């Protein structure tokens, strides 16, 4: 809708799976020779190859604590949730605050495919072929006002349809936030589909945020409210444990989580003997997003 360049490549245009596997074996061999820590940029690019995970992997292994803390709980209990009708309340420092019906939003957005790396703070990763639109376009719909500096997000809280939300695992509803420039960055999308199909509930239907250079928990699911603020909004995991989860939560192999290393990750789909691979700075999107954090101490602002 913004009249920008639109990606027309789809997952079908990416390296065929068989060819990719061959290449991965070569990389694994190189890592075995002790080259793992001095990987060249070109090899790092290879290690972060963008062959999407399978539909099953993406939809059967989820962190969505409103449905339970087990990885398979979201897929198991997802059908208990009704997602139609759905409205997103957009408020705060915007020109046109209000309840935006999901269908109304979709009628004005241009959906495109984005194949992104997805890195969980728990040190596993996937590649997901999302379908969605840029968050900037949605925010333009509401019109961000002059003083807006941050964007706050909220997930649906409906314990009667979300069994995990009946337990105080986190302070419900789940909330997240971005700085306005992060929210307006062209890589930041609201995803409404995967592999060209409607996004399943366990992955955050009907629409969820995807910020590919941040740990997965920043990419808040099943969004019901978006608020433009002038103050840094509270975020759920930061509220639960401030020493472990910061506001920024950019993927950064040099800043460890207090309980585990972030230097490497395990790609999902490699089975019982899956090899770890080095984690890339900003999850491989350094060229695109490093400028957002120029001059910032990323160890202090983790």
């Amino acid at each position, binding site marked *: 809708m913004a009249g920008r360049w639109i990606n027309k490549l789809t997952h079908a245009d990416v390296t065929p799976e068989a060819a990719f596997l061959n290449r991965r074996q070569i990389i694994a061999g190189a890592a075995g020779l002790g080259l793992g820590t001095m990987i060249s940029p070109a090899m790092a690019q290879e290690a972060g190859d963008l062959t999407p995970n399978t539909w099953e992997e993406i939809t059967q292994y989820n962190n969505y604590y409103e449905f339970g803390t087990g990885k398979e709980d979201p897929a198991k209990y997802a059908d208990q949730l009704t997602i139609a009708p759905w409205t997103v309340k957009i408020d705060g420092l915007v020109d046109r605050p209000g309840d935006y019906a999901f269908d109304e939003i979709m009628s004005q957005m241009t959906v495109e495919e984005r194949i992104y790396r997805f890195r969980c703070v728990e040190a596993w990763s996937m590649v997901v072929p999302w379908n969605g639109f840029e968050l900037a376009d949605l925010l333009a719909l509401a019109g961000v006002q002059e003083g807006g500096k941050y964007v706050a997000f909220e997930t649906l809280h409906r314990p009667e349809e979300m069994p995990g939300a009946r337990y105080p695992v986190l302070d419900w509803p789940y909330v997240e936030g971005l700085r306005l420039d992060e929210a307006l960055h062209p890589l930041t999308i609201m995803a409404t589909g995967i592999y060209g199909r409607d996004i399943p509930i366990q992955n955050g239907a009907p629409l969820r945020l995807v910020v590919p250079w941040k740990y997965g928990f920043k990419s808040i699911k099943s969004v019901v409210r978006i608020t433009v603020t002038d103050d840094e909004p509270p975020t759920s995991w930061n509220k*639960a444990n401030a020493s472990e989860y910061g506001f920024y939560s950019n993927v950064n192999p040099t800043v460890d989580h207090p309980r585990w290393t972030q230097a*490497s990750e395990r790609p999902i789909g490699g089975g*019982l003997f899956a090899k770890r691979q080095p984690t890339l700075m900003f999850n491989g999107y350094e060229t695109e997003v490093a400028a957002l954090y120029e001059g910032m101490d990323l160890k202090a602002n983790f």
Partner: protein
Amino acid sequence: MTLVDRFNAAARSVPTAPVYALAVLPGVWFFYLGLTGGLGVEPIKALEHKLGELALQFLVAGLAVTPLRRQLGVNLLKFRRMLGLVAFFYVVAHLLVWLVLDVQLLGQIWADILKRPYITVGMVGFLLLVPLALTSNNWSVRKLGPTWRKLHKLTYGAVLLGALHYVMLVKGFQIEPLMYLATILALLALRVRIPLRKAAA
């Protein structure tokens, strides 16, 4: 014969060897499931957690033997060594999955043990179990005499550290690890004997 007497008689007639085989079967089964896709798309963590949980369950079972006998007259003393050794088997299996399949890098393993408190706690718990496993034979029991009983009180520390390890590793407020911890604390509390003389005075 009361129900308890009948249970005890039945337990006496059960040989321990096949019980060992049965007790390690879940571990073997989960490994098989991990190999064949039965543990989901990320079988490494799944297997690691299953084995850790089994270890904790057998440790709790071992801890329950004495209170069961004292409070209810149910005698499973014959199986206590088996419960302890099988628990140790699962702790070692859990540790191996973590070392070989999960962390993979030797340097990283050492860093994790020193730097990550939940891993340090788990590791200390494992080390406490090593002398117990090594002395869980008749010869050691005879040789060590009263020292053996004292030595094997290390179980209490090991089980507590095991539960603590679990409590410390989960994200957010989760109930299951706390239930293990509460159960273990209750089983330990049942062992605290109020001195009789004080009660009489």
